[in-house]
């Protein structure tokens, strides 16, 4: 469903963030994208819905090259690609419900959205989603009243209300404590599987990548250096992706995840 070919991105007056990335993702596949800070993970997922303009290459989404779309067609494509952010990216002064419903902005006319008159089915689905993530009691609460984990749940509902085929998820747990982070990862992967969506998850916690996804892709200096089914990361591959380090505590079996949580 998503086919990236020879994608490069050079920031003006900045580094060459991507140096020719090839990556293809199948329907319903959950991929973890790992790699050191500055490797280009954020740039890569932002190129897919063109929040960042790629320099060259192709991004075929359902067979259509996203890079060549005009403004209107780009908006149509963005509707099918949901996004979840590290800092949740909620609008603080709007209510939980308004934040969730903003996921429908691409499909609702300007005046209807400005007057908060969303179609009945959207309202029902928003309420259903909020219930599903355990926020049924917070519908009219202002977003800045919520805790980090609750805010991320609102972000998840907003992305899902788009009824996307693909989810781009940027460091969903990096601002959360280990327990909440784990709950959020579980919730995301559950919902993604229920709806048979494809998802790309940028993530720093290697343990989460192995535990919650099906495939782990390692990015380093703008190039993909590792691409394996989950569960195969060992000291050598971590050295390949991140560089030389003593990886024994991360790869030494059962309590590997707990270690990774403590340092995160």
């Amino acid at each position: 469903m998503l086919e990236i070919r020879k994608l490069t991105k050079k920031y003006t007056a900045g580094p060459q963030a991507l140096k020719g990335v090839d990556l293809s993702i199948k329907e319903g596949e959950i991929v973890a994208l790992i790699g050191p800070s500055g490797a280009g993970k954020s740039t890569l997922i932002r190129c897919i819905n063109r929040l960042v303009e790629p320099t060259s290459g192709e991004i075929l989404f359902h067979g259509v090259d996203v890079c060549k779309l005009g403004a209107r067609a780009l908006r149509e494509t963005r509707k099918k690609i949901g996004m979840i952010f590290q800092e949740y990216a909620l609008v603080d002064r709007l209510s939980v419900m308004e934040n969730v419903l903003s996921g429908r902005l691409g499909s609702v006319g300007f005046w209807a959205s400005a007057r908060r008159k969303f179609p009945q089915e959207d309202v029902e689905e928003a309420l259903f989603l909020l219930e599903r993530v355990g926020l049924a009691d917070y519908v009219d609460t202002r977003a800045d009243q919520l805790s980090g984990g609750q805010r991320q749940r609102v972000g998840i509902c907003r992305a899902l209300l788009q009824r996307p085929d693909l989810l781009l998820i940027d460091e969903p747990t990096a601002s959360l404590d280990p327990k909440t982070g784990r709950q959020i990862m579980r919730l995301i992967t559950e919902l993604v599987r229920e709806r048979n969506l494809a998802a790309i998850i940028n993530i720093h916690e290697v343990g989460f990548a192995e535990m919650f996804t099906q495939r782990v892709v390692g990015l380093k200096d703008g190039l993909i250096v590792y691409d394996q089914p989950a569960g195969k990361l060992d000291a050598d591959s971590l050295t390949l992706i991140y560089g030389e380090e003593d990886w024994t505590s991360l790869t030494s079996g059962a309590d590997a995840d707990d270690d990774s949580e403590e340092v995160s």
Partner: protein
Amino acid sequence: MTPTNTQPVRTWSKPRWIKSPLLRYLLFALIILYVVYGIRAFEINPERIALGLSRAGKMFGSFLRPDFLARKNYIIQGILESMAMTVVATLAGVVLSLPLVFGAAKNIVPRPVYLLSRLILVIFRSLHVVVLAILFVIMFGFGPFAGVLTLTVNTMGFLAKLVAEEIENINEETLEAMRSTGASWLQMVVYGVWPQISARFTGLVIYRADQSFRQSTVIGLVGAGGIGAVLETAMGRYDYRTAGAILLVIIIFVLLGEYGSSAIRRRLV
């Protein structure tokens, strides 16, 4: 590089801003010389000061016996005119400033729009309110119309600059979130930008209304209507008792406006 016993105490002092002592003292000397030169250039004349002081005494004496009644109708009319100018200029300024407010925010518009808006903004803001008033009086003649235009333009410059800066400081991720839903630019502004700036915007509008009223008293002196014009007339006729009354009225209204505006703004946060 090993520490030696011959140097037991290591001292430290804050590095001087200007390192060379010669340059430092030279600069001091130049500044003092310039001040002396400046004072000589003012042609301070003790005779004129003495004369001025006695005139000032007479003027302030009259101010202490303000006469509200002799030109009561003009004062009331002037105040009403100033208030009308303030309200109209504030409303017009808010509406007209909106394109500039969003156009001058780097993070939500294309670069050409941003540069054009900033250029307009620089022109509006570089003209002091009195200079603007003089220009509009020359263009459209004496009276409150020139005053309203002056205050409108000034309001636009003030609001656009401060609110655009506020927009540039909003969380970038929320804008990305709006774009990634396929929202149009207008929807992004209504959902992503406006909620984050509305309280500050309203506060600035109220502050600006208060400021417009104060300015309306000044621009009247150059012929742009309002209570300032009445004050100018009184002064021109050496009618210091009426002028004193007008000054008192202005002070009271400015204080009321300031108190009112800060009381409202406090409730907005």
